[in-house]
């Protein structure tokens, strides 16, 4: 496990009981959250869950209906964007098409009565920082998508804002550039130490970039935590399902620490459910361990299908003991070779109790 983070982290952005309604439609419900100074926070959730709405409320671009937003100890809840302190990058980048790259970056620097030379120096420094030192005289339309994205970033941080807001900044790019830029944006953020909130619906992006992730669904926060926490200890079935792959098996709670799946009693992390409660048992494909037949708690299964996914195999297995339940399971290439696994073959697996999560059954 990771080391504990620095002691008593300082809250930079504090959001309290925030709601947003569009007419009768509730787009955000009871949102409360703290963003730590210098951290990279991601809002992650399916399309339409309210990520952008929340980001725009933080920016003051579309005010929340009720609730409080505090930035650096100052209540900014009802301030217009110009009286807040943030830089923002949109999915479209919103670069001014008729201004050169230099003028775009200098746009926010111009009113502070800075000498021209200083502005020029700062623009050059920023171009250097985003790795495009030679492009200053061009127009946005003459740059590639990835380059435009970096210019938008440079423009947003030009005035050294206390908060950087990114709304799906990478989603307009093709896959390869996207992966590369993830790295660069994260690197830049670390270098500047600027508190950053990014909106994304791409779980990989969130997992690889964020210090902490806020998983949202239907306008509410499902879970807040580090990528590892969210992945390993999903707080709800929604989170479990939205991030990574997850087997979900209808089950019934047994005594503390066990559940029954179609009559088969299994050890699990169940602690919250009374005997007889309808639940869903969940386990990630990579947490299912292939074992030798006859080992303790080994469950005999049959391999129905196997798909090679580059660094591992994803197989579908059927457990007769659990009434023919099908499970996804990931086998390393090594394991496949060692155990000589193939379609139709019988084998045994183990479902570790601490990885077999139990959630309330939907609607139950």
């Amino acid at each position, binding site marked *: 496990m990771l080391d504990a983070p620095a002691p008593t982290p300082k809250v930079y952005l504090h959001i309290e009981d925030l709601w947003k309604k569009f007419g009768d439609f509730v787009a955000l419900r009871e949102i409360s959250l703290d963003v730590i100074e210098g951290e990279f926070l991601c809002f992650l959730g399916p399309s339409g869950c309210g990520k952008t709405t929340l980001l725009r409320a933080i920016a003051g671009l579309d005010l929340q209906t009720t609730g409080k937003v505090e930035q650096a100890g100052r209540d900014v809840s009802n301030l217009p964007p110009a009286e807040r302190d943030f830089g923002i990058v949109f999915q479209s980048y*919103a670069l001014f098409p008729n201004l050169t790259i230099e003028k775009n970056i200098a746009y926010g620097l111009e009113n502070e009565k800075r000498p021209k030379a200083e502005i020029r120096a700062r623009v050059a420094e920023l171009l250097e920082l985003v790795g495009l030192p030679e492009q200053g005289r061009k127009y946005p339309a*003459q740059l590639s998508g990835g380059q435009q994205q970096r210019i938008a970033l440079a*423009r947003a941080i030009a005035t050294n804002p206390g908060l950087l807001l990114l709304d799906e900044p990478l989603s307009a790019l093709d896959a390869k550039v996207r992966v590369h830029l993830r790295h660069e944006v994260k690197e830049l953020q670390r270098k500047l130490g600027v508190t950053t909130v990014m909106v994304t619906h791409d779980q990989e992006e969130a997992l690889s970039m964020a210090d902490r992730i806020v998983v949202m669904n239907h306008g509410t926060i499902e879970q807040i935590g580090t990528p590892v926490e969210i992945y390993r200890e999903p707080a709800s079935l929604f989170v479990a399902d939205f991030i990574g792959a997850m087997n979900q098996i209808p089950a019934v709670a047994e005594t503390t620490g066990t559940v029954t799946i179609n009559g088969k009693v299994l050890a699990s992390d169940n602690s919250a459910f009374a005997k007889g409660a309808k639940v869903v048992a969940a386990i990630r494909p990579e947490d299912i361990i292939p074992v030798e037949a006859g080992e303790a708690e080994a469950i005999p299964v049959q391999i129905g299908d196997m798909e090679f996914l580059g660094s591992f195999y994803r197989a579908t297995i059927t457990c007769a003991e659990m009434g023919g339940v099908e499970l996804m399971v990931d086998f390393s290439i090594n394991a496949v070779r060692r155990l000589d696994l193939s379609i139709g073959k019988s084998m045994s697996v183990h479902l570790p109790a601490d990885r077999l999560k139990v959630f309330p059954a939907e609607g139950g």
Partner: protein
Amino acid sequence: MSAAEMTGPLVKPKLGRDDWMQRGFMLVIALYLVIALALPLYAMLSKAFSTYAFDLTAFEVQVSDESGGYNTPPVTLAELNADRQIWSKGDLIVGSDGRLGLTDLFPDFSFRSPVMYKFRGVTADDIYLVGSERQTGPEWQEFDSNTFRRLVIRPAKDVGLGNFTRYFSTPSLFQSIENSLLIAAISTVITVTLAFWFAYALARSCMRFKGVFRMIAMLPILVPSLLPGIALIYLFGNQGILKAFLMGNTIYGPIGIVIGSVFFTFPHAMIIISTALSISDARLYEAAVSLKASRWKTFWTVTIPGARYGLFSAAFVVFNLVITDFGLPKVIGGKFNVLAVDIYKQVIGQQNFEMGAVVSVVLLVPAVLAFAIDRQVQKKQVALLSARSVVYEPKPNKVFDRIFLGYSSLVAVFIVGIIAMCQFAALVKFWPYNLSLSLRNYNFDLMDGGGWGAYKNSITMAILTAVIGTVVVFLGAYMVEKTKGFEKGRAAFQALAMLPMAIPGMVLGLSYIFFFNNPSNPLNVIYGTMIILVVSTVTHFYTVSHLTAVTALKQMDTEFESVSASLKQPFFKLFWRVTVPVSMPAILNISIYLFVNAMTTVSAVVFLYSTDTALASVAVLNMDDAGDIAPAAAMGMMIFYTNAGARIIHALASRRILRRSEAWRRSG
């Protein structure tokens, strides 16, 4: 599911400096529209529903005997009239400045008689005049016979449908409704049919000279609508060269109006139908071809359904243009009355402003209806547009292309012929007896109508309209489109901006008389000046300009404002440095549209010009009215050449700007 409820206090936005400034701007422009549109219309409507009638019960009179002794009791005028049956009810209904002398009530009245009269109004609101001296109220006053002769009572104002009752019981007036609807309907059918095949030829055939045809089709926009009327007089009038073609029918009347209307509405219909045809999806045609459908079948199953919204829209626009047009029927309508001309006749000819207002209301009904239906159709068309389709590329077909070349040539000959006829008439010395050429018809200063001064006024007015109008329209559109919050205000503004399209020019002009020519209105000072001409013209052509600006602004990234605000820059910096440069093509289009229309418009300004501010287009009308038809044609051609010149300058300027911004404008 969640039981939680929203409990906290609502967040009230704190308005920043930008918000206040934007609201200020929007308020100013909204105020402009209220003053230049809403209030005048209100004044016009209230005029239409105001009736004036002498209220005989409101005055009392007591008559003495020959020796000056009053031995009969005072009576109301109503009682006297009932007794003596002098005036019928209809006699008492008048206009707002009607006056009624009372001596008729006394059959043996003589101004030399020693009989004395005591007179009073029953309440303080009852007005009567002695000579020109205004008197009111229930104080008894005594007059000798000679003075009583000069006493008149004033009518009382009432609100109601009285004017409309009178309108509909006057056959010579309401006949115009039928006439207007009839010529508008016939012109619509003909124009839309002609324009459809013309647009079809441009879009679907491979005929030659498409560029030339496209240009010729646009020419009628550059001239006032009364110019084709003048050309038709020369072609088919009493001394017309082609008079025989009419086989005894007269061009002065419905025939002339319809032919002229087809001419001046053709480009409007053509643009709309061309747009509709250009968005129909090529894939449908390919499908039809692969199914071996005949050209004819493809036409009915693919082309017509694809263009139907365009056809509807063109029909409503043409209908509206024809029914609201004033210049053409004025010139060539003869005894055939239509609504727009009736307004003019009532107001200018008979000084009957109430009846003018009534006809205006009657004319508003079809105009507003056609406008409203067109808006609905346009919405559907937009939905069609947004579905991405593949552009159709026609393939050559010899016979088909030749037929369309022939057809398009005929239409082109019609359009060019009308304009050429005018030019020829303007240059001929004395039609039809001396056909040698001279420039003497251009000696406008020798004719009534305003002379060359009117032409100069028109240029000034057009430039002012283009400049001021573009600024007002673009700022207004920007405020509606790009500001946040204040939703209700913005929606109201948007509705107000759409209104001018539905208001016929004649109605607008008359409304301006009622509103601005009112001594108690402080804005009265602009009446009779260039300002009121510019204001009325900007307002008259507001909607199309506004829509052009809104369309351009919609294409801009919605987040520019957000980015600029996050960088703590004022909105006007973004406006100057980004919004305006990026919208420059649209801005130029708006200004040329306003310029050309300001040069050609007649309807609103015909009520508003003064001797110092006579306009070229009005001069055409007035010279024609005075029988100086050749000079009218000459002035009309001056307008044509001016507009053509302006369009060329506009095209060059647009090209330059596009070239300069090539580096940053994404092509396609």
